[in-house]
C-alpha cells in the first residue's frame, strides 16, 4: 500500500487519529478502517454519488478524494444523520414517508447530497422552501436506477417543509 501518512479527522462527532496509506480513498477509509459501511461505492468516477458524504459541511464524493486530503476535516456520513436517541433526520423521515427509495443503495448518498442542498437554501435565508426544479438540479450528481426520482423529489421537499416547521 506504500507510505503511510498521519490523518486526524472527526467523523460523526468522533475524533480519529490514524496512519493511512497516502493513496487510500476517503470512502475506503470510512468503510474499511472505521466500519462505516453506509457510504457506498457505485461508479468509481464520481458520476453516481452513492459515496456522497459531508466534508466540512459540504457534500463531497468520497470515492475520488484521498483520505489524507481530509486531514483536520469534519466528516458526516449517513450513520451520523439520526440523533443519538434514534430520532431520524427530517431527510431520513422524508425518504421513508414518501417511498424515496427501493433498493436503498443510492439512498445514503442521496440523503447527504440533499442535506447539502437544503443547507444551502437555509444559508440563503430560504429555510423550508425548495422547488421541484431546485431539487432535480441539486441532485443531478446522484444517480438512482430504481425510483425514477419522482419520490426522491417529494422526499426532499417534505424534509424541507419539516425543517421549516421545526425552525419557525
Amino acid at each position, binding site marked *: 500500500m506504500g507510505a503511510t501518512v498521519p490523518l486526524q479527522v472527526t467523523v460523526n462527532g468522533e475524533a480519529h487519529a490514524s496512519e493511512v496509506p497516502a493513496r487510500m480513498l476517503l470512502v475506503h477509509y470510512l468503510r474499511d478502517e472505521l466500519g462505516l459501511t453506509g457510504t457506498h461505492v457505485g461508479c468509481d468516477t464520481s458520476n453516481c454519488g452513492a459515496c456522497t458524504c459531508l466534508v466540512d459541511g459540504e457534500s463531497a464524493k468520497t470515492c475520488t478524494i484521498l483520505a489524507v486530503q481530509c486531514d483536520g476535516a469534519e466528516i458526516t*456520513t449517513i450513520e451520523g444523520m439520526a440523533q443519538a436517541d434514534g430520532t431520524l433526520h427530517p431527510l431520513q423521515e422524508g425518504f421513508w414517508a414518501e417511498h424515496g427509495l427501493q433498493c436503498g443503495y443510492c439512498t445514503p448518498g442521496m440523503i447527504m447530497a440533499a442535506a447539502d442542498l437544503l443547507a444551502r437554501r437555509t444559508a440563503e435565508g430560504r429555510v423550508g422552501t425548495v422547488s421541484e426544479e431546485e431539487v432535480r438540479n441539486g441532485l443531478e450528481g*446522484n444517480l438512482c436506477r430504481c425510483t425514477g426520482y419522482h419520490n426522491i423529489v417529494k422526499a426532499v421537499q417534505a424534509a424541507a417543509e419539516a425543517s421549516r416547521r421545526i425552525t419557525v
Partner: protein
Amino acid sequence: MTTIDVPPTLHVGQSLRRKEDPRLITGRATYVDDLALPGMLYAAVVRSPEAHAKVLAIDTSKAAAHPGVKAVFTGEDMSDLLAPLPMAWAPPGVEVKTPERWPLVRGFVRHVGDAVALVIGDSKYVVADAAGEVHVEYEPLPVVVDVEEALKDEVLVHESLGTNKAHEWSMGGGGDIEAALAASDVVVQRRIVNHRTAGAAIETRGCIAEFRAGQLTVWSSTQVPHLLRLFYAVQMGISEDKVRVIAPEVGGGFGGKLQVCAEETMCAWASRRLGRPVKWIESRSENMAVSHHGRDQVDYVRMGATRDGRITAFHANIIQDLGAYFGLLTPMIPELGAFVMTGCYAIPVVQTDITGVLTNKFFTDAIRGAGRPEMTHMLEVTIDQLAQELGMDAIEVRRRNFIQPDQFPYETPYGITYDSGNYEVAMDRALEIVDMEGFRAEQAALRNDPTRPILRGIGFSTYTEICGLAPSRAVGPSGFGLGIGLYESALVRVHPTGSVTVFTGSSPHGQGHETGFAQIVADRLGTDPSVVEVVHGDTATGPMGLGTYGSRSLSIGGVAVAHAAEKIAAKIRQIVAHNLEADVADIEVRDDKFSLRGDPQSGMTLAEVAGCAYIDATKMPEGMELGLEQTLIYDPSNFVFPFGTHVCVVDIDPETGKVDVVRWVAVDDCGPAVNPMLIDGQVHGGVVHGIGQAIFEQVVYDERGQLVTGTFVDYALPTAADVPSFETDRTETKSPSNSLGVKGIGEAGTIAATPAIVNAVIDALRHEGISYIDMPLTPLRVWQALEEARGRGDGPRATEQGRPLPEQAEGSAGSGPTIPEGGAP
C-alpha cells in the same frame, strides 16, 4: 388449498410505509461489500483488451511475486470444474448452438473483458496492482461487431460452431402471413433498431465465497440464490446440501443479477483451493463491460391493415445480437417477447421469425422487460406508422383493434390465453387526464412561437405484457424449454408468542416484499404487519425458491405466501372454535384476533392461539398436530397479463435537437393493489428506465469491438434533472390466474415507455416531413433528422462518437419505407 372466507383487506390495499426502510435510510443495511470474514482474501480479474484473439502465452510470474499476492490462476488451473457456465434454455425440437463458456478462457478471447486470469491477494489495492502485472500475449483475430455483418459468416466468433447463426426460431399463428399481408389494403414496414443497453444497477455485482470444512457458502448480490446453489453444486461437484447461498441486501438487479456469474464460480473455486474466503467486488468499468447487456435487436416489421384501420397481419423478423457467448437465458429473450406480439389487439394473423447471431461483444440477456419491451416497441411504433399511412388518429386505430372485455379469457393466434383485460377503459382514463384538445392547441402555439419555437409532441403506448413467470408445466423442460419449472415457495411460521416469520423463495432487491407480503399475511392471521417478518435470500432458511424477475414476485411468491397463511388460518379457526366451544364456521378473522361472527369482543389473539399450539397442548383439539407452520409450493395455472396506457409529451428544441420529456401520464392495471405506493414506485422507476433507453443510454462498441461506453462518464443514465414527475393512475381488473387477482408491475413501465417516446417525437416532427427516427433519440440524431428534412443535411453525417456514419446505418431516419418489398433479408 383449503377454502376459507375471503379475509378482510385491512392492511392489503394500504400504502404502508416500508418495513425495509429503517435500516436502509440509516446506513445500517448490509450489502455484500459491507461484509468481511476472518482471513478473507480479495480477487481481481485480468481481462482481455482484445475483442477476438488467440491467447499465446500468459506470464503470471511478476504478479505472483507481488507482495501480498497469494495466487494467480488461469483457465488451465480450473480444469477440474465439472461443467461450463450454464445456459438454461433447451426448447424441445429447436437446435441451439451453444458456445462453451468457462469462468476463465481456454485459449481464445472473444470479447473485450473476457476473463484471462484471476489474482488473489491480501487487499483490494494489492490485487488491483498485481492484475496489471499479468502479461498476456495475444494474436489478434478478425472481429465482427455488427449483427447483420455477422450473419454473413465471413468472420466467425467461434470457429468450432462453423457459423455465427446460433439458432433460428419461428412461430406463426392464425394463417399464412404472406397471404394475409398480400390481402391487406395497406402494408407498412419498417426496420427498427432496438439498441444495446446496460442494466446498470447502482450496486455492481459482487460476492464472497467461503469453502470451509466441506461446506461452500456464497454471499452474492443476486436475484436467484437458489439457482446459484443448484449450479455451484453441479459445477463444483459438491452435494447440494453442502452449498448455501445468501443474497444479502441487494442494490438493484433489473435482470443483471439473474445470472450465474463467472467471477462467482472463480471465487468459489479459489476458496476451495486456498482454504480462505475470497471476495470479489465488480468495478463499474467491469460492470459496463461484463455484466450482461440487454436488448440489441435489428427488427424488420410489416403490418397489414384494412383501409379503415383494422389490423389484418403482423410480422416481425428479429435479428438478435447474442454477443460472444450465452448467459443463463441469452437466446430465449426475443421468444419471451413473441408471446405478446399481438399486444392489446385482435390481430388475426401473426408470425415471428427470430435469428440469434453471435458477435464479438459481451452477451445480452434479460434486462428489465426482457424481450417484451422490444416487441412492444415494434408493435406500438408500427401502429403509429400505420395510422400515419392511413391518415387516421393513432388512438382511433388502437380503439378499433382492442380485444374487447367480453372476449376474455382471450386466446391469441399463438395459443397464449390472456387472463383478463379492459384496455379501452385504461386508455380513456389516460385521455381524460391528458386533455387532447388542450394539448393540440398548446402544440400549435408553441410551434408557431415567433421568438423561440418549440416542437411539442404527444405519444401513446397501449401495452399488455406477459409476466408472473410460471407455470412450471408451460415454461419448464418439457414445455417452453427452461431448465427448471418456475413455481414459488412459502413458509409461514407463527412463533409461540404470536409473532410471525415468513420465508419466501422470491428474492427481492428493492421491490418491497418485506412490506407487501407482511400485509398479505397480517390480514389472514389477524395480526399487524409490524410483527410479521419476511425473510428472503438465504437457501439455508427457507424452501427451494426461484427468485425475483419477470414481475413474478407478487403473483407467484405473494400468492404462495397467502395460501400458506390461509392454511394456518384454517387451523387457527379449529383451535379457536375448540376453545370457545363454537362451530368452526362461526369463527372469523378480525384485525387483532379470531372472533365469533358478530361478536367482535370474543375470541383469541394470534398469541393466545400460538400458546395452545406450542405451549399448552391440552387446549388443542384432539388429534391435531402441534405447532402453527405451513410450507407450500405454489404453481399457478396461467401467466398474468397486466396492461395500461402510457402517454408521453416531449418538447424538442429545433436548434439543438434536444428532446425533453415534459409530461408523463401512466394508467396501469395490475389487478387489485396490495400496496399502491409500491406500485407507483415500480411504475416511476420502470418508465425512467425506458426514458433512459429511448433518449440517453446506449452501449457502444466501435468497429474493432472496443467498448466505448466503459463508465458512467460515457454511458448516460438519466438524472433527476432529465425526467419529469409522473401522473399515475390505475384501473383494477382482477386476474383469474390466482386467488388474489393480482398481476405484475415491475417491468410494465419499461415495456410501455420507449414507443410512447418515439411516437411523441414523431408527432412533434411529422410536419417537418420526418416519419421515423431510431432510438436513442439523442440531440445529434434528432438534429440531423431535422437538418436533412429541412434540406440542410448535405455534409457527412456523424455518429454519436463523431465518426462518419457507416453505410448500413443509412435509412434509420427520414421518411418512406426503409426495406425492400418482401421484408427482411
